[in-house]
């Protein structure tokens, strides 16, 4: 008796994350709205409060969490699989640890395969929260994590620009259709009096996680954990924004 060819990696994804309590994908429908800065700073904030946190940079073609946190790139240690780097109390994994500065042009299928490989070999161990820094957009990787990680919750980042608000609305509609668990909607780079992002959260009945003020000098803090800790961004991404757990499902609101 035989079976046709099987990709064995999927068989261990659940095992590798068995001791991880929550998996939160920090996502956004557009590039340049600060997903990586939010994801990495949230991880730092959680680690500083004693939360066991992992940070997995899934933006394979343009990884940047290591830049935000000021991490030296080096190959991870091999044990039974590979060990994430421990950085400022965060367990961290990124293709930047392997590829250095080289550009990594990849189509969706290749990114899916790279994601599966890293899920199959990375030893995350006991974590309260694993944060996934998603690539921009609503493409392949978003579907991959939805399919591969049934416990996934999304934390959606947006801002008040009309260009972005329109795209956040699309994302909320998609996540509602896909019945994705939502931590909530977080506004980044808030300026002026616009309440467009908070209003969207209300309209879709997802928790509004607050507004991070626009900080002109945030750039100066990137790469330096101590300076990041002094930013308004760090103050805004306090651990409470991802509690109460787990986030209410959009499917609940859809049935009301």
């Amino acid at each position, binding site marked *: *008796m*035989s*079976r*046709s*060819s*099987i*990709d*064995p*990696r*999927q*068989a*261990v994804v659940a*095992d590798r994350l068995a001791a991880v309590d929550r998996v939160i994908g920090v996502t956004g429908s557009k590039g340049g709205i600060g997903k990586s800065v939010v994801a990495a700073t949230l991880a730092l904030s959680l680690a500083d409060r004693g939360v066991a946190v992992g940070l997995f940079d899934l933006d*394979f073609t343009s990884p940047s969490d290591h830049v935000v946190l000021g991490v030296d790139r080096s*190959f*991870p240690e*091999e*044990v*039974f*699989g*590979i060990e994430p780097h421990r950085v400022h109390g965060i367990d961290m994994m990124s*293709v930047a640890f*392997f*590829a*250095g500065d*080289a*550009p*990594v*042009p*990849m*189509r969706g*299928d*290749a*990114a899916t*395969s*790279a994601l599966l*490989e*890293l899920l*199959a*070999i990375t*030893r995350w161990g006991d974590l309260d929260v694993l944060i996934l820094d998603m690539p921009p957009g609503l493409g392949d990787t978003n579907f991959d994590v939805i399919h591969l990680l049934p416990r996934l919750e999304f934390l959606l980042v947006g801002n008040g620009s009309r260009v972005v608000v329109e795209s956040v609305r699309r994302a909320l509609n998609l996540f509602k259709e896909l019945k994705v668990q939502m931590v909530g909607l977080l506004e980044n780079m808030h300026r002026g009096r616009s309440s467009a992002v908070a209003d969207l959260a209300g309209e879709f009945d997802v928790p509004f996680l607050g507004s991070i003020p626009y900080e002109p000098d945030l750039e100066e803090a990137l790469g330096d954990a101590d300076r990041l800790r002094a930013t308004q961004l760090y103050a805004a991404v306090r651990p409470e924004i991802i509690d109460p757990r787990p986030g209410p499902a959009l499917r609940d609101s859809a049935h009301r």
Partner: protein
Amino acid sequence: MHELALADSVVKAALRAADDAGISSIERIVVKVGELQQIEKDLFEFSLTNVIPTEEERLAGAIFDVSEERVRFECRSCGNEYGRNDVDIDDEDRAEAVHFIPELSHAYARCPLCGSPDFDITAGRGITLERIEGSGADEP
């Protein structure tokens, strides 16, 4: 060794496939090791025998049949097909990166005809469970 984690995935996938096919005694597990990932066949066979759970009776008599598969790239720009000797991934850091994540070949490999980094890996990428053979209670 990260080969152990991959071997573990093969054994778990084989057990899952056995469940699906109603196989209660697995006799043969056929595995392909892709050239691109640069995993030594002997080392992988050793890893496979080391990750079998001792209490797993379904695998008690199982033989691993491991063979190597040549890597093939197909250029999405000009259609050219090429192989391992046509790409420059021999530098130690490059080889190591591709060993962990074969898709990182996209950072280094280029089509030898047109120079494009836009290619598919059509064969010989990494570890594949080709099939399992065995018998089960529901066998005719």
